[in-house]
């Protein structure tokens, strides 16, 4: 069986949608962060696969995913730091409890 590019793009799309679903439904901030990570990884897969299978001449997609991985790491570090700060004052990381700001 020949491996078509769609066999890579569809799972990554499913992964992305799972990430969105998780982000919207999970109540724990760490779980939300994991969902975001899923979305960002789906992007990395997409770029690598498109570069490898459709435009094998250049390296743009590979480099974009390299940078995207670094950026995702920075984002996660930042988000974890902020969540820990919130945990110090709130004693939990449930988004339902982060609702004091209201008009």
């Amino acid at each position, binding site marked *: 069986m020949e491996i078509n590019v769609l066999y890579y793009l569809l799972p990554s799309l499913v992964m992305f949608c799972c990430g969105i679903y998780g982000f919207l439904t999970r109540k724990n901030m760490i779980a939300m962060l994991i969902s975001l990570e899923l979305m960002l990884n789906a992007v990395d897969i*997409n770029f690598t696969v498109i570069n490898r299978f459709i435009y094998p001449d250049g390296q743009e997609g590979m480099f974009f995913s390299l940078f995207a991985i670094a950026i995702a790491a920075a984002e996660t570090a930042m988000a974890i730091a*902020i969540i820990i700060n*919130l945990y110090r004052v709130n004693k939990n990381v449930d988004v339902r409890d982060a609702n*004091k*700001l209201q008009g």
Partner: protein
Amino acid sequence: MDYSQFLAMKQEIALLAIFLIVFLYDTFMPKKVLTGLSGITTILFAAFTLAGFGLMCGHTESAFAGMYVTSPVIATIKNILNVGVLIVLIQSASWNNSETQSTRRGEFYELLLVTLFGMYLMISARHFLLFVIGLECASLPLAAMVAFDKHKYESHEAAVKYMLTAVFSSAIFMMGLSYVYLLTGSLYFDTIASSVGCLDAQPLLIVALAFVIAGVGFKLSLVPFHLWTADVYQGAPTAVTSYLSVISKGSAAFAFMVILAHCFGSVYSAVWEWMLYGLIILTITVGNLFALRQNNMKRFLAFSSISQAGYIMLGIIGNNAMGMASLMFYILVYIFSNLAAFGVIQAIENKTGKLDMSDYRNLYKSNPHLAFVMMLAMFSLAGIPPFAGFFSKFFIFTGALSGTTSVALYVLVLIALINTIISLYYYLMVVKSMFLSTEDPIIETFRSSCADRIGMWICTAGVIALGLVSYFYNSILTLCQNSGLLNAIV
């Protein structure tokens, strides 16, 4: 490698130099002189801003194989942002010199300069890799700045909300980019522009562009991607809120225009005109309707800034040079009028800790000057002549309509006009509570600090001068018409 190409990035390198000076000063100087940090940063930045005006008559240069471009128009928008940042720096001086800020004063300035650097990259980028790096460089330090009030719960909650939505939006944005890459095989704006033309309205292109617009729409807080805005604006320290609402929004709006007009200009009417059309109507209307029922001033300005973002988008939907000029002028005017309002809010918050609109009742009795500046800001935001806001709205409507005969755009401008009248109601509510209330004022008479007053003077002068002197708009328009940025496409 040819290192001389770094010379094209004069503004970025100068900004990094300021950042390094501030960083080294903050790290190595003795504790006693650290209170001078705010003054030094402001003076350095003022010199940098003035020097930046010299670049406006330069010519187009590019670096890193065309990934980075600078031109007179780009230098101008950077200068406009610089003016805004300078005012923010002046206005935040007294907050930064307070006791609670003493241990982390330097961090505020460092983070602020880094975010500005990221915005520069966003504006100058002509390759999506550089754009994404600039976007993240602008939004990650901003999240740290939102979380700056370490002892306040609200600040943390706002930071969490900002951070999670920022990451979510950048993930969506990059997913859109991956589909653009799939369709065109490149991430260079030029290559995308030339190959997207023959794609027409392919479903995948529509999906890709919808993702890209949604991603940037989060940064610009367009409805329906606006839900974070009010909470973040309310929870963040006021200095950060003012920065977030004008500088971050202004740079994102310009970068958004470059992406849409430059990369996807050839599918303007087929794909993104109607997307933007819906977004603008929703943004202006929903922002206005929610602003009507706010009492907290920062929350109120958050919703007002959402609807202002809708007006800024009107400059993009025209897809012509006049729209571009009016967008830049709108950002400039918006910087002055919004920062005037935030200057007053910050001065009052620093002295009394009051933030609610009901606390402002009869402010005219106790602090006539502050009430006057606030009134000016509200009039300008609402668009009452002869203040700057009227002309910026006028030009942006003209820009949206120039060179078009489409009835839809006329309807759009009509809706925007009706919304201007709705917005007049809530802007005047503030003025009414300051001037026409009969009860005793809550806020006592006080004298705001020197830096606060300088900041408010600059904003007042800006609001009046931009309304009365036509030089500013004319020079921006000439610059835009001479530049090849939009002309190649229109």
